[in-house]
């Protein structure tokens, strides 16, 4: 009898111990290295926040420098096979690989950043970066003296085009003479190429550089040129304060990652599509430094606060498309569907979007 009780006790203890180590495994797939100082760095900060929040209850794994395309499918599959319960795939180009792998692992939850394809076990999440671009465009338009603003694009996808349009609309609003020069780098992360692109834009007269690539190289080029300003992209890039980095867009993924991990642990995870902006804290505007004149700073903060409290939408009519056809009437606000698939420039931008 006693012995049975003892055994039962041991079994119970073992069982408890077993339960205690039953962790939730969360995987992350990164497009660049965690040390890029930009996009991937911030996703990794989100991962670390998940670890901090849940301690021993979660185990996180990540793979960095995963090429977009077929190789991503292999990496995501491997992660699912290793027992991940929740996998965040953090780049646009992982969209189809994520959906493909998700079909093979119905019990694993997937979260794809910046995409638009969902499934019962695939959610999408993104931040309204264009809200931050509106603030940047305002500062850029007011600070440029050559009236030429250089813009380093990565790939011609809706997210990047939205950013260009938003920045242009707001630069134009405060400075009607402003002109955008756009260079497509066809990479998310290649410091040498990004530096070349920034130098070319500066040589062609730009004194403000906006970037939609992930490294700090364009800021380094701006600093070397002197008298050129830029903005932190995806991360604060505070080491280039107070100039050339005069402000930044910071992606804050931590609250979302913690929430979704908790949903999986509680069994309440459901497929959804979220798109959060400045109001929810997913997009933050980094400190506007003293290099920015008071007037420009005030204008930028006004745009930011208007967006944050919902009074102002960066895409408010009247707005025409590049070819002059009307898009939004006076006071009309762009709907999320159009924004999500945006593939046109607004009126005033020159050049064509590569197809």
């Amino acid at each position, binding site marked *: 009898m006693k012995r049975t009780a003892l055994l039962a006790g041991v079994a119970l203890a073992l069982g408890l111990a077993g339960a205690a180590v039953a962790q939730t495994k969360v995987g992350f797939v990164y497009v660049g290295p965690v*040390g890029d100082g930009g996009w991937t760095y911030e996703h990794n900060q989100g991962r670390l926040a998940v670890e901090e929040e849940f301690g021993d209850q979660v185990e996180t794994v990540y793979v960095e420098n995963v090429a977009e395309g077929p190789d991503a499918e292999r990496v995501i599959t491997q992660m699912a096979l290793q027992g991940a319960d929740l996998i965040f795939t953090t780049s646009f180009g992982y969209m189809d690989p994520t959906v493909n792998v998700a079909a093979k692992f119905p019990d694993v939850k997937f979260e794809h950043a910046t995409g638009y394809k969902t499934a019962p076990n695939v959610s999408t999440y993104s931040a309204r970066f264009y809200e931050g671009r509106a603030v940047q465009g305002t500062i850029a338009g007011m600070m440029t003296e050559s009236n030429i603003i250089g813009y380093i694009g990565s790939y011609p996808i809706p997210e990047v085009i939205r950013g260009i349009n938003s920045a242009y609309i707001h630069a134009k609003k405060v400075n009607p003479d402003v002109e955008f*020069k756009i260079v*497509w780098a*066809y990479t998310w992360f290649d410091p*040498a190429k990004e530096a070349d692109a920034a130098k070319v834009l500066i040589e062609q007269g730009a004194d403000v550089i906006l970037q939609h690539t992930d490294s700090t190289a364009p800021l380094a080029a701006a600093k070397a040129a002197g008298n050129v300003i830029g903005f932190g992209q995806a991360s604060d890039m505070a080491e280039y304060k107070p100039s050339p980095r005069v402000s930044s867009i910071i992606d804050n993924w931590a609250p979302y990652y913690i929430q979704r991990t908790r949903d999986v642990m509680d069994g309440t995870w459901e497929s959804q599509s979220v798109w959060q902006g400045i109001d929810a804290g997913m997009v933050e505007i980094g400190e506007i430094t003293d290099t920015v004149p008071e007037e420009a700073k005030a204008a930028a903060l006004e745009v930011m606060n208007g967006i944050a409290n919902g009074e102002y939408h960066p895409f408010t009519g009247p707005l025409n498309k590049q070819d002059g056809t009307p898009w939004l009437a006076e006071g009309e606000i762009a709907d999320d569907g159009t924004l999500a698939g945006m593939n046109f420039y607004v009126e005033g931008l020159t050049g064509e979007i590569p197809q």
Partner: protein
Amino acid sequence: MDLSAINPVLLIASLMVAATPLLLAAIGELVVERAGVLNLGVEGMMITGAICGFAIAVETGSPVLGFIAAALGGALLSVLFAILTQFALANQVASGLALTLFGLGLSSLLGQRYVGIKPPETGDAFGALGDIPVIGPILFGHDLMLYVGILIVAGVWALLKFTRAGLILRAVGENHDAAHALGYKVKRIRVMAILFGGACAGLGGAYISLIRVPQWTEGMTAGIGWIALALVVFASWKPWRVLIGAYLFGGVTVLQLNLQAAGVAIPVEYLAMSPYLITILVLVILSADKSNAPASLGRTFHASS
């Protein structure tokens, strides 16, 4: 379209900067291959040189010491390759690939503390001479390393063409058994060539992290080492053609960005692939004189065989 926005003087000046990392890495690999060794680890040695140079330049505040450290770092990594291929007689292709993977990992590890730091500035070699209109920015407006790169090319050319040492190096690369029979130390010569290649690749990497970008980020060489390997082949193992190829590649790279910024109506995809296509095309035409690869390239040598 506004082509007048492109300043040809600045274009030539910046293409020289863009081409220098490639030039340094390629000229090093050229010597290695002329000695009959195929080292696919250029990318790994470059990135290791990039972080070694960056770290030392930051710690000491001297870019010159940084470049010396970069050359040493690249050479040190190539020692590993030399031991594997020359003494353990391992397969050169596999060892080279392993060297690249190892170098990429090692550099991230070494670079942990150096993300987001700015390196000391490398000044221009000739100071005020760079202010002369037109020729100033092109001929005199650069940092010292750019000229060192060109000097290395000239030196390698002269060595291979005019000196006994160059003749021996080529003999080892063409037929190592014959060279051995004549009493030349095949292994010793090859190890020295490998070390030289490593040092040059290291310098090329440091040129990216200290001058061209300048900062440290993981994986920042982004494939230039592979382009250097291809360039050596397309340049038919000739030093001046490596220079032409590197400048062509750098030039088209910079030019296509300039054309984009000026709003030229050529689809960007074509512009983006143009550096690769044009460089290959021109070098293939140049190599119509049937220059062949060193005959012993990639073959393992052992004195018994």
